[in-house]
């Protein structure tokens, strides 16, 4: 099986793009995903991802680049959710639900009414890593660079805000600014990952590699590193399996990721129970 995949990889440029794109995407996935897990903002990330379709639809309707629309929509959704959560905490949940569904609805309507041939809605929703172009690769690369640079520059503030917002505020850290920055990083990561697994499945790649890493390491930076490696592994594995058996790549990647999370969760809890039993017998 592996040999067919490797052959395709060597001979087909689109496979090379897919692999490089997937590996680049895993960087943002590991870094931003770790914040999603420790801050428990999976629902916010899901809301942003779905709202993105509205932006893509609008860009498509106006004859602009869908990726540009996706970036704008993701950032706007992140800022709306962030500001609502700062100002009207109780409305946060409702706001996310609204953005989630309204964004999708808007996207579907605009795409339906767009002139020209019909866009492949399915590839927005479920991703098609094989369609990543050279321009997309550069875009993912620059977004990665931006995300990693911001995290390196403000690692200590982002950690403090994630760990203990109140204390961070007392130390004159601009908690609101950094919370919004964090959501923007998540938003950009969502845009990157949409290329790989599509907007409906994004949340799996954001949350699960970092959650698996969290089973084994007790430091945020190491969590980011391991989540990045795992993300790269799952995306590559998903690409190989889907190519071999002619399956949808996004869904295959997500199933692989979910399976790994399940195995890791069960494994770690069995191991802990065993440890507990052993220390109990002593």
């Amino acid at each position: 099986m592996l040999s067919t995949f490797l052959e395709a990889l060597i001979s087909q440029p689109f496979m090379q793009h897919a692999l490089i794109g997937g590996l680049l995407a895993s960087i943002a996935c590991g870094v931003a995903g770790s914040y999603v897990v420790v801050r428990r903002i999976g629902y916010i990330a899901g809301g942003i991802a779905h709202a993105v379709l509205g932006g893509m639809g609008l860009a498509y309707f106006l004859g602009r680049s869908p990726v540009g629309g996706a970036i704008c929509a993701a950032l706007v959704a992140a800022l709306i959710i962030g500001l609502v959560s700062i100002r009207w905490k109780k409305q946060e949940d409702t706001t996310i639900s609204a953005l989630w569904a309204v964004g999708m609805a808007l996207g579907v309507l605009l795409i339906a009414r767009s002139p020209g041939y019909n866009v492949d809605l399915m590839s927005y929703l479920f991703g098609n890593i094989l369609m990543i172009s050279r321009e997309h690769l550069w875009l993912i690369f620059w977004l990665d660079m931006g995300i990693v640079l911001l995290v390196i520059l403000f690692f200590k503030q982002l950690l403090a805000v994630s760990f203990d917002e109140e204390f961070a505020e007392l130390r004159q850290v601009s908690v609101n600014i950094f919370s919004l920055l964090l959501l923007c990083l998540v938003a950009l990561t969502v845009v990157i990952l949409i290329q790989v697994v599509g907007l409906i499945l994004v949340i799996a790649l954001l949350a699960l590699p970092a959650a698996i890493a969290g089973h084994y390491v007790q430091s945020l930076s190491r969590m980011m590193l391991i989540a990045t490696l795992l993300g790269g592994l799952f995306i590559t594995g998903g690409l190989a399996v889907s190519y071999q058996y002619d399956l949808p790549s996004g869904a295959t990647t997500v199933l692989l990721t979910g399976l790994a999370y399940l195995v890791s969760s069960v494994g770690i809890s069995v191991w802990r129970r065993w440890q507990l039993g052993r220390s109990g017998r002593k």
Partner: protein
Amino acid sequence: MNEPVITLEDVSFRYEEHAVLLDINLTVHAQEFLGIVGPNGSGKSTLLKIMLGLLTPQKGQVRIFGVPPVEARLRVGYVPQFITFDRNFPINVQETVLQGRLGKTRLVGGYRREDHRIARQALEEVELGDLGKRPLTALSGGQLQRVLIARALACQPEVLILDEPTAHIDPKIEEGVFDLLKRLNQRLTVLVVSHDIGFITRYITRVACLNRTLVCHATSELTGSMIEQLYGGPLRAVHHDTLLHTH
């Protein structure tokens, strides 16, 4: 005369229709070890948040070192209740204590060498010098409490404010925590908020009883009947014959 560390003048606070604090007057002087006690729901956390500038009272004036609380934040070391923490957060002791340096260290990039030195010193002061690399998940309740005190010490504060420092840890360790605070009190003003009055009186110099209103006592004059009055019923206001605002 020394400038008071904390002054509250006629401070009242209400959540919508419900008055939580009523005409609180309090002056805390340098080097004091003050305990604020009161039953649950007596307004302790609200009072604390007002002193930290996280809440603004509708009436009255709060001054920390003569300025509004928000401007004095870097001179205050705050120790929150550890029970509110996510114990699974991937962070170690050293990274936690270093957070005390925020606001004084540089904005961009990592912490300075100086920050690491101060954090290490703070950890040694709470007798956890060799646990720097230990993840927070692996700490006992008493150790975590000391880590949070070290984090506040890393702020190099002039006053230490602690919220229920001994809740949820066993009495033996509790004693150790108060011994530590007593030692820190030799150079710092210490203010402890607690619902646990029995223990606290052995250590502190003055106690302020809070149940919507606030009354101060020297610890020597605190009697059983006062405590009974304070805790007698959560809805009953506390009546004292004399209000002692000074000491």
